[in-house]
């Protein structure tokens, strides 16, 4: 099994799809010569040429709209939104157009577009370049939302997103780009809507996304030293949500922690908690704990940024609260 970084895994999915399928192309700000602000598309211009690796003007609304138009015409565009903070500028196209057109046309139109984007704290990008806005898009009927946390997952899920006939908002995490992991020789598509159990446990289930998957795995190891057995589940796809896997895990462990980097209030974890309290009510032995960022714009100063976003410590504390060992 080859080892790839998360960044290379994204590139591999894009390049492989473009090699086998002329309908697939990528577009975005500075993705061609510069290879994207995070270097994800580095080298792709040389292989595929500027027709299929298209630099766009600095207008997220225009590039999102163009991608939607191409998708409606039968292409499978992958549009890169440089920072997910800038999805706010593309929101009209993503939320009001891409998400609605198949429905409003009675199925006459499909919009097989992927909006790839990245965000996340941990490198002092400040308040406007590191938000975690996935909850905004999970709230929109008509969009699929993916947030992958490992090289294997990001490659297999991006593949499925490209070949899904519906618009997919595909979140990547900035600090995960350099992490390495083994991936299958050939790309194995990972179905959208299926969670991954990273670690099995008996006492408490942590449902985590993005960077917090890794923090939760660290916390789980520390908890084990205290005799607490932790199961870590990454939904991977936030919409549609694999409720079955999450609910059955919590029915087994009777306790749950939801963890993400986005602010806790109204975060994706709130929805998970709601699903669990309803479907696993009679199995819960403790209140569901939530871990997320404090309700604040992200500070620039590293110590303050570190203070605002959650880490393994916070997950561990939440785990201990659920088992009454806090």
């Amino acid at each position: 099994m080859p080892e790839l970084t998360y960044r290379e895994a994204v590139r591999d999915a894009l390049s492989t799809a473009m090699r086998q399928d002329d309908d697939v192309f990528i577009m975005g700000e500075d993705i061609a010569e510069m290879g994207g602000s995070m270097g994800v598309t580095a080298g792709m211009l040389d292989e595929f040429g500027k027709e299929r690796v298209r630099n766009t003007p600095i207008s997220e609304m225009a590039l999102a709209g163009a991608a939607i138009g191409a998708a409606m015409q039968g292409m499978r565009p992958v549009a890169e939104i440089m920072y997910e903070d800038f999805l706010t500028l593309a929101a009209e196209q993503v939320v009001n157009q891409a998400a609605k057109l198949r429905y409003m046309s009675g199925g006459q139109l499909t919009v097989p577009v992927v909006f790839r984007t990245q965000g996340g704290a941990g490198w002092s990008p400040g308040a406007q370049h590191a938000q975690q806005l996935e909850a905004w898009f999970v709230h929109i009927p008509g969009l699929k939302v993916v947030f992958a946390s490992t090289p294997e997952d990001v490659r297999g899920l991006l593949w499925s997103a490209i070949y899904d006939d519906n618009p997919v908002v595909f979140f990547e995490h900035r600090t995960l780009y350099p992490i390495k992991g083994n991936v299958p020789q050939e790309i194995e598509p990972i179905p959208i809507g299926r969670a991954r159990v990273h670690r099995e446990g008996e006492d408490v289930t942590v449902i985590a996304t993005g960077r917090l998957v890794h923090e939760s795995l660290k916390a789980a190891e520390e908890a084990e030293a205290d005799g607490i057995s932790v199961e870590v589940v990454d939904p991977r796809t936030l919409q549609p949500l694999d409720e079955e896997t999450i609910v059955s895990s919590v029915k087994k462990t009777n306790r749950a922690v939801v963890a993400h980097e986005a602010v806790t209030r109204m975060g994706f974890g709130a929805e998970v908690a709601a699903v669990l309290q309803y479907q696993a009510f009679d199995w819960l032995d403790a209140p569901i704990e939530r871990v997320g960022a404090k309700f604040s714009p992200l500070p620039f100063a590293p110590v303050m940024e570190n203070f605002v976003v959650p880490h393994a410590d916070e997950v561990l504390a939440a785990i201990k609260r659920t088992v009454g060992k806090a």
Partner: protein
Amino acid sequence: MATEVILPRLGQGMESGTIVRWLKAEGESVQKGEPLFELDTDKVTQEVEAEAAGVLLKIAVSEGEVPVGQTVAFIGAEGEDVPEVAAAAPEEEAAPSPPQTAEATVEVQEEAAVASGNGRIKASPLARRIARERGIELARIRGTGPDGRIVAEDVERAEAGGPSAPAAAPVRLPTGEVERLPLSNVRKTIARRLTEAWRIPVFQLQASADMTRVNALVARLRERDPDVRITVTDVLTKVCAQALMRHREVNAEFTEDAILLHPSANVGLAVAAPQGLVVPVVRSAERLSLTEIAGVRADLVGRGRENKLRAEDLQGGTFTISNLGMYAVESFTAVLNPPQAAIVAVGATEDRVVPIDGETAVRPMVTLTCTFDHRAVDGAPAAAFLQTLKESLEDPGLAL
């Protein structure tokens, strides 16, 4: 007769409307033409005016969707009877009461919190389900979760019949305010009886006993019959009973005109129950074997911790043993348990260096402190009683 308020048709094609909120409360007087409630239709939200003057007697539909023509309220003279409403909209049941200001919401929440402090049992959903399925009463389970919440483990433990949760109280951060714990009946009784006891002239005598043989005896009996679980307390009960029968002037009660000497040693055991101190009684302990005492003691202590003792379990004691040995207390003085004339306070059995035959030795020693009612017992007979107690512990065979 009361006038019905009917949901009006506000436009052509209107089949139903949704009552958003009432602008008048039940019991309030209403003028004809005054706005009565807000109605939401598929076109507009508008205020509906009263068609009659009087008192708003009853709001039949407080909120929700209602078909045109349905009665939603009654206006009439104060105190007038209101006919039953035939068919209420289904939304009515679930609908909350009319205008909910922020203040009203806060009040409701506070009420709920108070209610949870009074009588509502805190238990996790899982604990409730297990208790329901297995027919276990939550009321008799003590919770070990945060804020005393009953969690699944507590129910499992209760079902297994084990002792209720260890006394490790959940850590609660002080709120910074004085907490007020209203006096329970048990607490009131404790306070009254101890205050009475304090007025009695008492004296204390203290002696230490070598527990080597008692420990060996207990170990041997447990080995022979592991199910019975004989404890040091059981041996103490037996030894005290025998000493009381040999020194009947201690197994006594002082009254206005006589000293009563009891024919039997009914030994009370001070038990720390969740609701406070209780002293169930092992009756005629001098006639019971150690195994019998252990059985009676286990039953009494178990029911004491579950708050299930009956009145007769607590009556008729002639002497009391108060044992704080499990808390690393070396020795202490117990307050008399009237009308009994004596009580023994038992400290922890601990290794001490003691002289034996001119040499130093390390022995498991216990310190006994007896408190006596001086009106009933003088110093010399009291000392003789304590000496018998000490000798019987050091050589349990002497108690036979």
